[in-house]
């Protein structure tokens, strides 16, 4: 689950963000505490705290004094926006590079894309 060569606090933050995006962690719900995350991932609590701090700075989480960290309203939209903006860099550039190596043109890619998209919507993960 934890990748080598990347800061842990980023990975922790990402995993919390993932659960907000896919709906398992709802807005206004209580987020896992620093100690819970540290125990789960078997990492130093300070590292987990750094991840939580980053999410708080972004506006994804907020603190309710005396109770704990909660998911902010609008967090999901915020994260979706972020991820969509990075989508092309993260997924399309490598895809295009590989396609180029294999000699597939953008039209070929577009055709493959439509075929695959049709297949997955019928099998469907709810969106």
């Amino acid at each position, binding site marked *: 689950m*934890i*990748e*080598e*060569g*990347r*800061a*842990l*606090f*980023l990975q922790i933050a990402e995993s919390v963000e993932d659960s907000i995006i896919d709906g398992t962690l709802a807005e206004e719900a209580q987020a896992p505490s620093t*100690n819970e995350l*540290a*125990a789960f*991932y*078997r*990492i*130093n*609590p*300070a*590292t987990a705290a*750094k991840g939580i701090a980053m999410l708080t700075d972004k506006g994804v989480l907020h603190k309710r004094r005396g109770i704990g960290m909660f998911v902010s309203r609008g967090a999901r939209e915020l994260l979706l926006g972020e991820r969509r903006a*990075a989508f092309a*860099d993260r997924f399309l*550039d*490598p895809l295009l*590079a*590989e396609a*180029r*190596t294999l000699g597939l043109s953008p039209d070929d890619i577009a055709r493959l894309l439509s075929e695959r998209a049709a297949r997955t919507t019928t099998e469907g993960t709810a969106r």
Partner: protein
Amino acid sequence: MTTVIEVKNLTKRYRDTVAADDVSFTIEKDTIYGLLGRNGAGKTTVMSILTAQNFATSGEVRVFGEHPYENARVLPRMCFVRESQRYPDDATATHALRMARLFFPRWSQELADRLVADFQLPMKKTIKKLSRGQLSAVGVIIGLASRAEITFFDEPYLGLDAVARQLFYDRLLEDYAEHPRTIILSSHLIDEVSNLLERVIVIDKGRIIMDEETEAVRGRAATIVGDTARVEAFVAGREVIHRESLGRVTSATVLGELTDADRSRLAAEGLDIAPVSLQQLIVRTTQHVESALTAAPEGAL
């Protein structure tokens, strides 16, 4: 953050070796540090001097603002059980733990009992007759249950099997979360302990070559693999700390975070990016430093 230990220009010279060479660093309160380095790098020497079990040749050490030597105010607040600790001849684990209870003011018998059960430590056998792993377990239990404000673990897991080691790491994190204190863990199994550490201090041949936040160091390097010409083109102008070639394929480890633009370019060139673990980074950095030192010119020609 409060500083609990201050080390300034610490040097320890033996007749023909320098075990610690102008070492300086500070230790902050309630933080877990890794004191990493090869065997014989100077880790135990430094820890012994901090606990006044050994003496500096020159330099200054301050613990809780005071000199630790013969200091009954400061010493009981520290616990240092070394890797090959000698116990009284007739002592059993029961004796050792009973003594620790008497000498460490924050001792937790509850935690000690729990750890004894966890490690399945035979309490009535003399310590002389225990296996290497069980001997380590005694030291680990004393270190953890002492709950000393500054606890040193000197390669505590030698002889412990993988299950026991994981148990130690788990219990350490658990107790640290509930009872925060300053912990300094020396190890050469870097990847195993890296998740526990908030800061790493790397020592090589008695010199400190790294003193940073673990998270800042993680992800600092990446290994670029692929066609030699393309790899060399990419790494030109960057600091390469390791290079290996096989035929027309080169694997080069570079320092410096890769930007998104870098990643796009690498993808476009068909070069692979392999992650570099903390251990690999530290090993490569150590080798890099060592070879730089040996390559340095000896004097004017």
